[in-house]
Structure formats: structure tokens, C-alpha cells
């Protein structure tokens, strides 16, 4: 399973690399599958509202009203109908890719079970929306779907009367049932919106809109497709005839041919079993959890940076419980914490410059305390030689770091690159432990912990607290976000970085400070 997942992950990252070249990581559609899903949802909602204005819900009028929308009002209604269909088809594609990608990237277990779990009902709801939509056209495809769907429901054996008997022939067809389908086609998408909202509740800074450029390109693509190949109805439904050869929407109806060959209850077993498997997947097997972040109140002033930076809303600010003169304290919600350490990287007290007291930050990871990080950094850099000594900090979800080790390269692996407080970069460079710092990890735009690369970039650029201080020469800091597939590129980038470092003049070490000045520096970091 692990081997298969690694291969699949490499395949996804390979595709990512191709799309990155065309779209850049910021617009890469494979990094925005979820937001594209939202985008397609809104397109179907807006186009659906327009269609509903002109749609007649009567059995005998539905087909005719759609013919009017498609053919007479082709420039507006026809385009809206095509957008409605193609956006809903595209929704299926991005939804399935999103599901597969999160599974392959192992982003569904542990505390992330909730997001996965709430995504499963969305599958059923999306298909219910699409299938009920096709029903409303009331052409031969709608007739086939109506009969096949109701026969499948009847196979459950829980309805007193056969639902499929409503479609026995033209005489038995009831307008009441058709009205019910219209209601379902409106109510289910609204309910779906609620579930979509729940789906992202445990994501901090959850993105629900794709980047503007990607959205414009995608909408443009759908518009071109709508004009080039307008969605049209097939022959009107006639219950006295049996639908024979039909144009088929394979995105929504892929299971229907199976309904024609397998018993209904077998299909229920397949659908129910598949759904149950998806629901249970986060625990098959469960993720082995590391110790969650812990708060040290003596060093926490309730500044809230850890709260702002946690990608999973696992840290909250609560009223102070000790006598410290601060209004709030950070509290870790254990069952939401992924132990990524991003909160530690955000904590201003997690600075290796602190020498006046034991290095215990306001929030820390028990399995890799910031004190250990400093000690390991010092031990790893102690034996380096040459004029291009580099400290590589990498995350455990990116390229292999071991091959990078060498006489002039030290390596440290972190759960997430954003666990590294910027002060560590300052520390190892300005204290002349190394000549440069090289940061690496997941592919840009594909951070395993969602926001680690973003936060790191913003901290280094001075856009997000805690900043990398201006005194750190930026030419001595490099980033390379390669993911798991581009090990060679990583090595080449590192060698190139070392080459640039070798050309730089030696680092001027700042004058030694008195203990009083050091305390002031710590206070500055704290602020």
C-alpha cells in the first residue's frame, strides 16, 4: 500500500510539475481542485437560477420550455444551459481528482478525518443533483434515468407501492411526481452547500475561490465549449416507447449500464459498501499520531501568532488561567492538532538567541522541542568545513534529504518547514555556524500541512510575524520546493547555491553583546 501510494504520489507530483510550468504554482489547477469544485458549483447555481426563470415544471411543458431556452434564446438561455451542464460535469472531474489526490497524499487520516468524512456525503449529493437535473429535461434520456432510478429504489423493497409504476406508460404518468423532482433538484444543491460549508470548517484560511486568473481561464473555457457544442435535448420522452440508443453523460450516469445488468440489490451493496469503505478509510489503518503541541504558560503571553498560523484551527486563545499579566493564553485542542509544529515556528519566544534562561518557548512540540532543534543544529554544523557551509532545513514530506549531507552540508528534518522560526536562520548565519541556509520541502503549492510554505515565504519576506530580521543577508538564504520527485533538481539547486555562497565575502560576525544586550534582543524577539 505504501509503495503504491508512493508511486501514485510521484505520478501526481509529476503532473503537478507539468502544470506548474504552464500555470505556475499559484495557478496550478491541480493545487486548486477543491476551489475549482466550489467555482463549478457556483456556476451551476447561477446558470440554474437563470434557467429556472424560463423553465416550465409541467410534464408536457418542461421539454418545450427547454427547447425554447436552447433554440430561441440560444444566445443567453442556451449558453446558460450549456454552462449548467458542463460546469456540473467538470465538478465531477475535479471532485474525483480532489478525493484521489487527498488519499494519495495521505491527507485524510488522523485529525483530518473530519474533512474526509464530511466529503463522502457530497459524492452522493452531487450525483443526486446531476441525475435529478437530467430528469427534468424529460427527453428519452430523462425517461431512461427516471425508470432506471425508480426501479433501483424499488429494489430496496421499503416502499409500499412501486415507484417505477409511475412511469408505466403515458397514461400513468403523474405531474405530482415530476414536481417532486424539481423540488429535489433545488433542495439538494442547497443542502449540498451546507455540507460543503461543514466540509471546510476545520481548515483555517480555507480557500473557496480559485485564483482570479484560473477562474477566468476556466470560465472562458466553459463558455467556448458552450458555444462550440451547445447542450441540447434528445427526442422527447414517450413512455409508450423504450429508449434505445442514447447520448449519455458518462460523468453522472456511469453506473447506469450496471443497473441494466446487475440486480438492484447488488448495486445497493456495491454503492453502500463503497461508501462505507470511504467513510472508514481514515482508520484503515489509523494514523500513528505524534505528541501534540503543548503550551508553556510561563513563556506564553497570549500574542496569538500561533492561533493565526495554525492551518487546522488547533490553537485557540482563552482567558488567562494563571496570574501572569496577560489577558489570554494559547490553548492547544489536541484532537485537532497534526503536530506539524507551525505554531512553534510562529512563536516569538522560540528563538535560539535566548541564553539567559533555558530555551523553552511558549508553545513547543514534545517530540522535537525547540531546545533540541538548537542543540541538533549546533551539533550538525560544528563539523562543517569549507567556504560554502550550508544548513539544510527540510520537511519530512519532500525530497530525500540524506543524499544532501556532506562535509560542507548539514541536514535537519522537521515535520513541516514552517516549524522553523526565522530566528534560527538568523542565528546560524550571523553567528557564523554556516555560510548559508537552504530551505526545502513539499512542492510549492502542495504543502502537506496546507500553509507551511506560504507562511515560511511570508516570514522570510517580512510580511508575516515573526519576520526574518533585515540584518540577515538574503543572498545567504535559498528556498527550493521540490516535493518527492525532483531529487536531482534539489541537489543541483543546492550545489548552485553553494557556488554562489563561495563567491560571497566572508560573513562579518556582529560584535559580541553583553548579557544585558542579549536580554534586550530576546525581549525584541518576544515583542
Amino acid at each position: 500500500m505504501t509503495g503504491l501510494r508512493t508511486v501514485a504520489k510521484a505520478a501526481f507530483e509529476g503532473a503537478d510539475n507539468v502544470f506548474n510550468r504552464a500555470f505556475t504554482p499559484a495557478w496550478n489547477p491541480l493545487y486548486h481542485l477543491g476551489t475549482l469544485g466550489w467555482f463549478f458549483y457556483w456556476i451551476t447555481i447561477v446558470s440554474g437560477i437563470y434557467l429556472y426563470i424560463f423553465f416550465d415544471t409541467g410534464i408536457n411543458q418542461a421539454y418545450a420550455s427547454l427547447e425554447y431556452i436552447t433554440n430561441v434564446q440560444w444566445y443567453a438561455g442556451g449558453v446558460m444551459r450549456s454552462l449548467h451542464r458542463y460546469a456540473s460535469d467538470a465538478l465531477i472531474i475535479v471532485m474525483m481528482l480532489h478525493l484521489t489526490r487527498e488519499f494519495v497524499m495521505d491527507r485524510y487520516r488522523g485529525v483530518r478525518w473530519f474533512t474526509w468524512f464530511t466529503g463522502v456525503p457530497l459524492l452522493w449529493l452531487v450525483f443526486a443533483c446531476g441525475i435529478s437535473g437530467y430528469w427534468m429535461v424529460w427527453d428519452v434520456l430523462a425517461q431512461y434515468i427516471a425508470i432506471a432510478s425508480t426501479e433501483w429504489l424499488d429494489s430496496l423493497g421499503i416502499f409500499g407501492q412501486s415507484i417505477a409504476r409511475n412511469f408505466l406508460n403515458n397514461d400513468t404518468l403523474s405531474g405530482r411526481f415530476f414536481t417532486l423532482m424539481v423540488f429535489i433538484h433545488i433542495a439538494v444543491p442547497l443542502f449540498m452547500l451546507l455540507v460543503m460549508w461543514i466540509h471546510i470548517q476545520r481548515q483555517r484560511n480555507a480557500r473557496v475561490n480559485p485564483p482570479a486568473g484560473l477562474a477566468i481561464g476556466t470560465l472562458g473555457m466553459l463558455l467556448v465549449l458552450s458555444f462550440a457544442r451547445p447542450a441540447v435535448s434528445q427526442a422527447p420522452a414517450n413512455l409508450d416507447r423504450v429508449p434505445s440508443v442514447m447520448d449519455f453523460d458518462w460523468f453522472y450516469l456511469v453506473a447506469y449500464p450496471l443497473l441494466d445488468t446487475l440486480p438492484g440489490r447488488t448495486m445497493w451493496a456495491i454503492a453502500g459498501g463503497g461508501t462505507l469503505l470511504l467513510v472508514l478509510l481514515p482508520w484503515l489503518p489509523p494514523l500513528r499520531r505524534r505528541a501534540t503541541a503543548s503550551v508553556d504558560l510561563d513563556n506564553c503571553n497570549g500574542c496569538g501568532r500561533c492561533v493565526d498560523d495554525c492551518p487546522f484551527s488547533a490553537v485557540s486563545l482563552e482567558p488567562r488561567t494563571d496570574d501572569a499579566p496577560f489577558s489570554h493564553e494559547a490553548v492547544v485542542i489536541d484532537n485537532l492538532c497534526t503536530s506539524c509544529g507551525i505554531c512553534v515556528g510562529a512563536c516569538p519566544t522560540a528563538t535560539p538567541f535566548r541564553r539567559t534562561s533555558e530555551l523553552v518557548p511558549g508553545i513547543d512540540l514534545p517530540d522535537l522541542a525547540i531546545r533540541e532543534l538548537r542543540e541538533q543544529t549546533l551539533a550538525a554544523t560544528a563539523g562543517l568545513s569549507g567556504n560554502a557551509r550550508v544548513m539544510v532545513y527540510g520537511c519530512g514530506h519532500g525530497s530525500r534529504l540524506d543524499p544532501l549531507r556532506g562535509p560542507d552540508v548539514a541536514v535537519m528534518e522537521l515535520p513541516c518547514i514552517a516549524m522553523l522560526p526565522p530566528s534560527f536562520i538568523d542565528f546560524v548565519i550571523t553567528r557564523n555556524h554556516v555560510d548559508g541556509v537552504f530551505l526545502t520541502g513539499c512542492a510549492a503549492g502542495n504543502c502537506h500541512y496546507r500553509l507551511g510554505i506560504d507562511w515560511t515565504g511570508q516570514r522570510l519576506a517580512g510580511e508575516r510575524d515573526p519576520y526574518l530580521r533585515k540584518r540577515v543577508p538574503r543572498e545567504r538564504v535559498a528556498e527550493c520546493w521540490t516535493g518527492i520527485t525532483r531529487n536531482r533538481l534539489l541537489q543541483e539547486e543546492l550545489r548552485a547555491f553553494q557556488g554562489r555562497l563561495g563567491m560571497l565575502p566572508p560573513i562579518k560576525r556582529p560584535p559580541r553583546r553583553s548579557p544585558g544586550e542579549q536580554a534586550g534582543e530576546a525581549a525584541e524577539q518576544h515583542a
Partner: protein
Amino acid sequence: MPRVTQYIGQFVAYALFALVVGYFATQPAYTHLDPDRALIKLSFSHAGEHLQECRRLTQEELNQLPPNMRRPMDCPRERLSLLVELELDGELLYRDQLPPSGLAGDGASTAYRKFPVTAGPHTLVARLRDTRRKDGFDYEQAASITLTPQQNFVIDFRPELGGFLFL
């Protein structure tokens, strides 16, 4: 500033996506029923006779019941399964026992079966037994029919209209 190659790459990606969406939204066509064939659909809902006849309780049995439940007749709810048979061109097409619905087995029996057949002339016989009789059928309807390609030929059962209806 995006390079020209990036624009070309994006165009190709959008075009491929549009091709996939546009094609699989309608193609390939699906054949549900061979265009030369027709469909005979048997569908009805009908309650069989009660499994047992009503029985008058003895005075002794009535005395054992609470006063408010002393109904003189005992009528078990359970119903008989229906026996249904379809014969097409002299050959048995379908024969089945249709159990009553409901947890207590006291509801109507339901039939819903589809039989794709070749279009053209056929002789069709439908039979149904809904009583406690051991042999034979209570209803029988025969007809010579000519099915056109893709015709949906429905066999319903309405005892109030005389039994089987060929629609």
C-alpha cells in the same frame, strides 16, 4: 510575466479539459435496448386472498379474551402469495410466486418484470392465481399481438376491470 510557452501550455490544458468534458458529456452513445427489439413489461400490484378463512371463536375462547377484545370472528392477516405465469408463443416466459408485502405478510403482492423480445407478431398468455385453489388459475388472458421495434408493451392487472390488461 508569463512567457508565450506558458500561454500555449495553458491553452493546451484548457483545450484538453474542454475536449474531455465535451466528449464524455454525450459520447459514446449507450444502447439500452437493441433498436430491433421491443419490451414486455409486467407490472401490477394486487393482494391475494387471506391465507386462512375467518373462523368463529368458541364461547370458551371468547371468555379467555379481555372484554374489549371479544370479537366473534378470528381473521388472520396473512395473505397468499400470487402465482403468475407468462407464456409467449407457446413457451413459458415467466413463472413465479409473488409473496405478499409487509412485515406481517398482509400486503399486496407486487410484480415488476421486463422481458426484451424481438419485434413482430406474438401470442401472449398471462395467468394468475390469487386464491387457495390447488390447481389452475383464477385469471387468464390471451392475445395475439404485434410488437413494433422499441415498443413498451405493458401487462397490468386490475381485477375490477376483469383481470389482465394489455396496454
